[in-house]
């Protein structure tokens, strides 16, 4: 195959595409993705294989002369597994290619071969060679094999197979250039395995014996194995392993939260500055408001999570590379399996306690598609940081001066979210995502130092995916919701006008303080009025009867409507609607909220029953549009996001209703 010369491409006669396509194939844990990153650098994009939720990474190699597809790691092409089916389809050219959508087989296949498990890996070479595609073999992990006394002879293997075999080290980059060059010399192997699958296995075993020398010192190997045994016994022990796991995860999230704080503040400052700049530069009017508040404010509110997402993926990538994450998945499998989830689901669910966005995105590490989808669907039930302001408000109103009881209620909210999540997972796995759970059989890779380069590329990859999302769907959603909350502009209420008139009369020296107080009060009234008269306010009033059974009046309903895009907005909306103050932490706001009454002037706005109902509603409801957008993308369709929204809203409504009625029954109505 000749890169850059489409007319000379091997493969499909009569079809000439812009660039040759090479498929990268290999077992999991062979260094395939590290090699892909080395070969393509930053010249790659991430999407899904058409019609699947399997991640497809496509990059260009040979200075842009060919496209490389990173296929899912598989133990065999003939296995009855979704990832094997994807590989079979790509190699057969069955269906649209993830590169250009055309139905054609790749021009060559590059099989990544782990030198430490040569025989097992050679079965994949045997299966691939039966596809009669030009092939190149990249021999990785040579240094690890050598350290164990095993010497693989690439020249001998090349002669045996009849296609180029190149030894390389994807971590250090050694030999990677030769892999790229050898792709241009890809040839259809002459030595292919005979017979059935058993024939392939025998062929691979015999070939491995011919091309590699066994270690002279088997004692050394045994000692290394015993050492790994001891570490594994601790890491997968039900008690010790759980302690290590808790420590590692606490450390991971501690680092994420503490280190992400500064860049998050920087992002916040940047977008506030951009909003301010737009305010100064643009002429007064709706365009200025749209740009400064809708576009800049909306995107800023989403992009602020970027540092958390990047840090989380960076650390998870490092952890995965060490070999620990596979042990952790094995440990957690016992806990999650009864609910139809895999041990791999634990990290996404735990991450969702920070923010559902990175949690859902990290579900890509769950190998089984149904378990992955179930994880994505239930991840937003976990209490994210955006719910905390609502929890604080409701528990403070419920348990004023009883901090321990409030703390207990807080813990209850977390527990309710987890219970709802795992039970929902069980339900979806027994209904719409029915199917046999794949019993845990996971390869535990050798412990090794993680690759910083791979972690950085993974981080960049995930960060860009998130930014693309923030710049398209999320931006559009933010603009619409901003418009609903900001328009139509209405005349100030008579009370505010009267206050301003009074303030303007206070011109004498010494009256500055009284004047400022009147103006502040007028401003509060104007804000509350504007919020109530906005489209969101109108919608809130219109749908208030729907929320009546939950104990919500029209003001609480406006809070629910405006926080549809982001939960945390509920508190600021309530402070604006009730107190006319934008800052929920401003002095006296909480007292004003506690004292606020409903339209009858007697019933408190936040009755204990309404507070319980509100608390349960916000634990369970899907009030986060960016999460829905990410679910649609990661799950492979808007229907999953719709299902997630409908299910979570229904569960939230039902349980909030129950909480309200129970609280009323025990005297929480006033």
């Amino acid at each position, binding site marked *: 195959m000749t890169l850059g010369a489409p007319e000379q491409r091997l493969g499909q006669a009569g079809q000439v595409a812009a660039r040759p396509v090479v498929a990268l194939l290999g077992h999991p844990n062979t260094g395939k993705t590290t090699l892909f990153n080395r070969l393509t650098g930053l010249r790659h994009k991430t999407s899904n294989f058409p019609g699947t939720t399997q991640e497809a990474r496509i990059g260009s190699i040979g200075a842009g002369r060919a496209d490389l597809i990173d296929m899912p790691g598989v133990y065999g092409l003939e*296995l009855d*597994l979704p990832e094997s089916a994807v590989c079979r389809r790509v190699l057969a050219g069955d269906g649209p290619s993830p590169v250009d959508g055309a139905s054609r087989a790749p021009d060559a296949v590059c099989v990544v071969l782990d030198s*430490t*498990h040569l025989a*097992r890996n050679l079965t994949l070479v045997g299966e691939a060679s039966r596809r009669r595609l030009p092939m190149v073999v990249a021999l990785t992990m040579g240094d690890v094999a050598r350290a164990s006394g095993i010497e693989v002879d690439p020249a001998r293997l090349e002669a045996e197979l009849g296609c180029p075999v190149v030894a390389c080290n994807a971590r250090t980059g050694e030999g990677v250039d030769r892999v790229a060059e050898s792709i241009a010399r890809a040839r259809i192997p002459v030595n292919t395995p005979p017979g059935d*699958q058993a024939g392939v296995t025998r062929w691979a075993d015999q070939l491995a014996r011919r091309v590699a020398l*066994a270690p002279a010192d088997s004692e050394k*190997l045994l000692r290394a194995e015993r050492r790994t045994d001891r570490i594994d016994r601790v890491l997968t022990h039900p008690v010790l392993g759980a302690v290590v796991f808790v420590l590692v995860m606490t450390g991971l999230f501690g680092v994420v939260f503490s280190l992400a704080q500064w860049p998050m503040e920087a992002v916040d400052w940047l977008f506030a500055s951009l909003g301010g700049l737009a305010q100064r530069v643009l002429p007064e009017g709706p365009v200025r408001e749209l740009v400064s508040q809708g576009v800049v404010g909306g995107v800023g509110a989403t992009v602020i999570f970027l540092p958390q997402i990047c840090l989380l993926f960076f650390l998870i990538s490092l952890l995965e590379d060490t070999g620990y994450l596979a042990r952790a998945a094995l440990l957690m499998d016992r806990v999650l399996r009864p609910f139809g989830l895999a041990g791999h689901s634990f990290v996404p669910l735990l991450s969702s306690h920070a923010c559902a966005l990175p949690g859902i995105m990290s579900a890509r590490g769950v190998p089984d598609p149904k378990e992955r989808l179930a994880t994505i669907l239930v991840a937003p039930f976990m209490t994210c940081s955006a719910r905390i302001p609502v929890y604080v408000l409701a528990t403070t109103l419920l348990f004023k001066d009883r901090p321990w009881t409030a703390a207990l209620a807080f813990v209850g909210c977390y527990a309710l979210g987890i219970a709802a999540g795992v039970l929902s997972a069980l339900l979806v796995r027994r209904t719409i995502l029915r199917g046999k759970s794949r019993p*845990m059989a996971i*390869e535990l890779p050798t412990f090794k130092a993680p690759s910083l380069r791979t972690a950085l590329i993974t981080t960049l990859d995930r960060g860009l995916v998130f930014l693309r999302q923030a710049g398209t769907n999320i931006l559009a959603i933010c603009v619409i919701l901003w418009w609903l909350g900001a328009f139509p502009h209405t005349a100030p209420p008579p009370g505010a006008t009267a206050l301003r008139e009074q303030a303007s009369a206070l011109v004498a020296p010494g009256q500055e303080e009284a004047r400022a107080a009147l103006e502040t009060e007028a401003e509060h009234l104007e804000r509350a009025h504007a919020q109530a008269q906005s489209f969101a306010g109108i919608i809130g009033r219109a749908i208030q009867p729907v929320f009546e059974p939950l104990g919500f009046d029209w003001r609480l309903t406006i809070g629910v409507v405006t926080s549809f895009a982001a939960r945390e907005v509920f508190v600021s909306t309530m402070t604006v609607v009730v107190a006319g103050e934008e800052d929920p932490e401003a002095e006296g706001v909480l007292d004003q909220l506690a004292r606020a009454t409903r339209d009858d002037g007697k019933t408190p706005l936040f009755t204990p029953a309404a507070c319980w109902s509100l608390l349960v509603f916000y634990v369970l409801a899907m009030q986060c549009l960016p999460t829905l957008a990410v679910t649609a993308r990661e799950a492979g369709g808007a229907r999953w996001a719709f299902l997630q929204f409908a299910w979570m809203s229904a569960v939230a409504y039902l349980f909030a209703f129950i909480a309200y009625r129970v609280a009323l029954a025990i005297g929480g109505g006033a």
Partner: protein
Amino acid sequence: MNQPETPARRDAHEGCCPPEVATRRVRLTQLRDGQTGKVLTSQLDPQDAQVLSAMGLRADAEVRLCRTGQPCIVAVVGVHGLCCRIGLAGSLAERVVVGVND
């Protein structure tokens, strides 16, 4: 301890080694920590058997139990002595029959 195998079960895992190689047939879960054996056959579903076989846990493979329990860890010895470790759910491990030399 050793349940009789049906021909269908036996066929699910091709390429069994001759029974005279092993002196005692036990389930993988019955091995002690660090004990080695040779996979004889399995009573797994064909799909699970196929996956484990592709991972290296196939008939005639030499195995060592690294950690007992649920799930267990088994090291599959490769042709040159290097092992690959597999974490295995108990439901799978108890269906793999190995031969051990006492």
